[in-house]
């Protein structure tokens, strides 16, 4: 008899938790994916909670690929995504909104022996292509036409990520075409480049610059891209000294896209949860004022209005 009561009690308790958690679930927004967008989404979640204390957030990183995989499998409400959305993904029913822009920039160590020459002449897209895609350049002297030779060491990302895919897209390839030593994660790649004076790599802007000081992180230097290919870095191509300069160049369209790229939130079909839709709407309106201070470039108003239409 006693046992029966206990069992009934347990079943009742279970049913109650199911009901409660269903309500809670409606108020919880789970997000995972790209490291590039992660800091901004965390900031947004904190600000949003000040106005809507009943909403709970569950945010994790893991890379753009994971964001897409999780969103498509329904493991999360929204995936953070940091590269162009492929046709295969669109045909699987991906729904997306763009939120902001950042860029992938080529980086070298501050101890690179050719730093001064590089800052004056930059590297053109074709030269990057011969380094990263063709693999035809094995020495800094091949690019810079100097007499003293230093073997060039190419670094790339090993994990499936938006940064590498966007960088490859700039050079006309896919991540799998990028040559070089694969390092796991954005901070790891920055570390490897800083430590190797003969190395070359690429990073998300937010990992190359320090938001608080607005300068490049210690030990890291940015290679200016010779956009017009005339062999020197003209004053209008020289905007890499401060974070602000780079962000302005991206916003003005001086810095090409790719490697500048839109950052997205993706889901499998239009989200049904009202809480999720409200949050996205908020990020596209009031949320936009936190974009700049978090170190990203805001979208122009027309694009934002286009995405707002998708929410209706």
């Amino acid at each position, binding site marked *: 008899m006693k046992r029966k009561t206990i069992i009934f009690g347990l079943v009742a308790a279970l049913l109650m938790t199911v009901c409660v958690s269903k309500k809670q679930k409606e108020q919880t927004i789970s997000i995972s994916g790209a490291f590039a967008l992660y800091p901004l989404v965390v900031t947004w979640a904190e600000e949003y909670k000040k106005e809507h204390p009943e909403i709970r957030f569950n945010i994790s990183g893991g890379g753009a690929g994971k964001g897409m995989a999780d969103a498509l499998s329904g493991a999360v409400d929204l995936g953070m995504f940091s590269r162009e959305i492929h046709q295969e993904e669109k045909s699987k029913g991906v729904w997306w909104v763009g939120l902001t822009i950042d860029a992938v920039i080529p980086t070298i160590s501050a101890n690179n022996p050719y730093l001064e020459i590089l800052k004056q002449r930059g590297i053109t897209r074709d030269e990057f292509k011969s380094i990263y895609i063709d693999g035809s350049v094995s020495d800094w002297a091949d690019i810079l036409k100097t007499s003293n030779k230093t073997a060039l060491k190419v670094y790339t990302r090993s994990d499936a990520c938006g940064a590498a895919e966007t960088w490859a897209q700039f050079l006309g390839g896919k991540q799998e075409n990028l040559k070089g*030593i694969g390092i796991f994660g954005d901070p790891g790649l920055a570390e490897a480049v800083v430590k190797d004076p003969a190395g070359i790599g690429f990073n998300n802007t937010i990992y190359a610059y320090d938001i608080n000081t607005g300068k490049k992180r210690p030990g890291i230097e940015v290679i200016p891209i010779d956009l017009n290919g005339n062999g020197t870095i003209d004053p209008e191509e020289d905007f890499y000294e401060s974070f602000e300069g780079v962000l302005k160049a991206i916003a003005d369209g001086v810095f090409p896209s790719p490697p500048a790229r839109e950052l997205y939130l993706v889901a499998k079909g239009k989200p049904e949860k009202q809480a999720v839709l409200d949050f996205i709407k908020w990020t596209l309106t009031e949320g936009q004022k936190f974009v700049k201070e978090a170190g990203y470039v805001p979208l122009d108003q027309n694009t934002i209005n286009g995405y707002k239409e998708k929410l209706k």
Partner: protein
Amino acid sequence: MLFKRILFDKIMGAWMVIALGTILLLPFVIGVGLYIKSAPLFQHQDIWHLIGTSEWLPHEGKFGFWPFIASSIYVTLIAFIFAAPVCLLSAVYLTQFSSPRLMRVMHPVIDILAGLPSVIYGVWGILVIVPFVSNILAPAFNTTSSGYSIFAGGIVLAVMCVPYILNMLIEVFNTVPIGLKEASLSLGATFWESVKHVVIKKSYPGIISAFGLGIAKAFGETIAVMMVVGNMVQTKFNPFEGGYPLPALIANNYGEMLSIPLYDSALMFAALLLFVIILIINLVFRYFIYKTGER
């Protein structure tokens, strides 16, 4: 009353059989699951073609697994070459020559080494081993290397295997009856001769199984190796170049699985390959143990 007791007894017996059966079934279930998941890949390409070729371009539908298999074997081999002699000699010293006090100090040291999460070995590899390979080892061999290489992976793996192999070897040597050694000594053999001809000979099967376990563990190690090995798809047998072992392939790319056709099957096939290779390693070592036990 008696009936109830017999029934209870039977039920308890059945539970244990079920528990045992589950454990026996597990490898089988995992293997079949991986095979079913990777099956779509076989419809497009011949399995030997998949294993034998070395072009890896998932977007173009080219899945060549040879660079990954070769890297895995290569890294494991280097780790084994470093770890095996060190473990064997230190196990012999600890059990036969050293004072019991040293042994008491060693046990916690081994436990700590075995208990460290592999990501710590990975970070340590990046901070210490990678610069060591790049600045000291590569110039000594008259080449240049960024340090992110098969060699670095091998060294980190060797350090990770040491506690496992060493622990087993110590257990193995401790089971050799003291009487045997005393008999050998009483016949006029020196201490070293007794160790060599009695203790080590008697423990052959144990030594082999310790090495087997170490190799199987090294083969499947993921994070620490991935962080230092360079993740380059290539088949040049230069230990100072990067490699790309199978576990790293799976860990790096499982996120991209859904966006490229057949990619998920390819990664499942990588897992299946890993599973089969470790199975083969285990079978081979089982056979050795059986053979030496027979003698």
